[in-house]
């Protein structure tokens, strides 16, 4: 393993992490809910009456962040190297998998680990492992594009 010192951003990433943690804390302490994006979005795909507005408002706040950053000229690069076909396959897998597994990086990876849930710890170790394997297959094995 070689460390990519050129791209390593421990301070900015820690600051970002603290803000993500702050948002998750606001969610549980004020609203009594887990800030899990796949679940929040899932509730809009199969909406229940009276359980819609907060989801749309939260996701609007989320989308506003890059809009604001762009307006201020502070938005960092979004480098998407995957091809359109890869993005479609990846999107289907992420949507299907997070629904089946009841959570994603925010719900399991942040909130679940923070509350020491054995399910979330298992989920996080699993998606980290298959994520690492996939990157290896695509970029190093010689089989990927």
């Amino acid at each position: 393993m070689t460390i990519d010192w050129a791209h390593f951003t421990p301070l900015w990433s820690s600051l970002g992490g603290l803000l993500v943690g702050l948002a998750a804390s606001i969610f549980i302490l004020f609203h009594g809910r887990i800030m899990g994006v796949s679940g929040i979005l899932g509730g809009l795909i199969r909406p229940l009456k009276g359980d819609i507005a907060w989801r749309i408002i939260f996701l609007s706040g989320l989308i506003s962040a890059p809009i604001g950053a762009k307006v201020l000229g502070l938005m960092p690069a979004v480098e998407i190297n995957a091809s359109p076909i890869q993005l479609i396959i990846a999107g289907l897998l992420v949507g299907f998998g997070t629904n089946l597994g009841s959570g994603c990086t925010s719900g399991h990876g942040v909130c679940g680990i923070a509350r020491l849930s054995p399910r979330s710890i298992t989920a996080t170790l699993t998606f980290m492992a298959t994520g690492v394997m996939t990157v290896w297959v695509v970029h190093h094995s010689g089989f990927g594009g």
Partner: protein
Amino acid sequence: MNHLVRRISEYLAGLIFGVGLIFGGMTNPSKVIGFLDFFGVWDPSLAFVMGGAVIISFLAFRGAKQREFSLFGRVIMLDDLKSIDLRLVLGSALFGIGWGLSGFCPGPAIASLGTGEWKVFLFVIALIIGSWVAGRLQLRTH
């Protein structure tokens, strides 16, 4: 009034989350893939995003576990499911494959819609279809 305050705080939570993802580097798929590239040139940055987020939320959840109602008087919804089943593991495994392939997970992908990049829209539309299909098949345990 209380209702408005609640709405504003929901919006702010989303905004703070989005700003955190941008600062942390999570809205750049190439950086996310760098984090998952254990066997190449590894960028550990995103471990710091997760670490920072977990430390803060750990304290919040400790507080929440002792309460029945949130500060806005809502029931605190914390399931205490313990069962580790095939759905959880298979679902998470498939999610990880998609994550590694694209560098996008749901939070950063939805935030990145705000950049207006068409490729992000393509990913999010596929994500919605994938989630809808899993929901249709009624595969969830709860």
